[in-house]
């Protein structure tokens, strides 16, 4: 085999298999939490407790008013050893929305989510084995431009 072909194969494989989803990850998909109809139910599924202390070290940023189909949420954790960040939208039929598991010190994540109605958004950060949460009000309105 030519070296060039081998290299190409190697690269293709790195992309195809190097990034494959390991078994442990598949087992880790919290489907029960995603099916939960209540915030407390989802929290219990995820962390085994719905009683989490509030912390202002978590910064949450959303637009003042957003379309229910697309609201950008930016989350910054002020904790040094942030392990995971979870996003829960209380007004959604299934509130649990996203879970970011961090394997390196990281502090910032952002994504766009659907929010059924104005209400509150909940972010739960696990840092150094401790759980912290913060609530953030969101407003959904009709925006023609979106």
């Amino acid at each position, binding site marked *: 085999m030519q070296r060039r072909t081998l290299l190409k194969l190697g690269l293709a494989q*790195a*992309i*195809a298999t*190097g*990034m*494959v*989803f390991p078994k442990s*990850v*598949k087992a*880790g*998909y*919290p489907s029960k939490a*995603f099916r939960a109809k209540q915030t407390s139910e989802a929290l219990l599924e995820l962390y085994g407790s719905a009683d989490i202390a509030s912390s202002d070290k978590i910064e949450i940023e959303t637009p003042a008013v957003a379309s229910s*189909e*697309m*609201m*950008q949420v*930016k989350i910054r954790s002020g904790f040094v050893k942030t392990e995971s960040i979870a996003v829960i*939208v209380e007004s*959604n*039929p*299934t509130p*649990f*929305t*996203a*879970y*970011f*598991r*961090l*394997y*390196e*010190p*990281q*502090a*910032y*994540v*952002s*994504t*766009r*989510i*659907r*929010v059924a109605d104005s209400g509150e958004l909940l972010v739960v950060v696990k840092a150094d084995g401790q759980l912290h949460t913060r609530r953030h009000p969101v407003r959904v309105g009709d925006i023609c431009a979106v």
Partner: protein
Amino acid sequence: MAKTITIRARELNGQVRVKSIIRHPMETGLRKVKKTGKKIPPHYIKEVIVSRNNRMVMEIFWGKSISRNPYLAFEVSGSKGDSIAISWLDNRGNSDSAMVSVR
């Protein structure tokens, strides 16, 4: 399959700022076809994996409340020339991945 992932990665003081968009319908399973009233079956991304230089740095689980054509941005330590790869897997078993080097 056509390319579904667009990634931009840029270094700023030892931090790599990554922005990406994945093309995906993200059907919740609740939407109906107007004419027939039949529900459109759910079709959404469940997992996203982010790697830097072939090592997993972040693993993301998504539900149905992520917007259509999901947007994902994050910061990770790293420097110019590092490779950032993103791959996704949806509930139908489709997947895609893409890689860029940090500018």
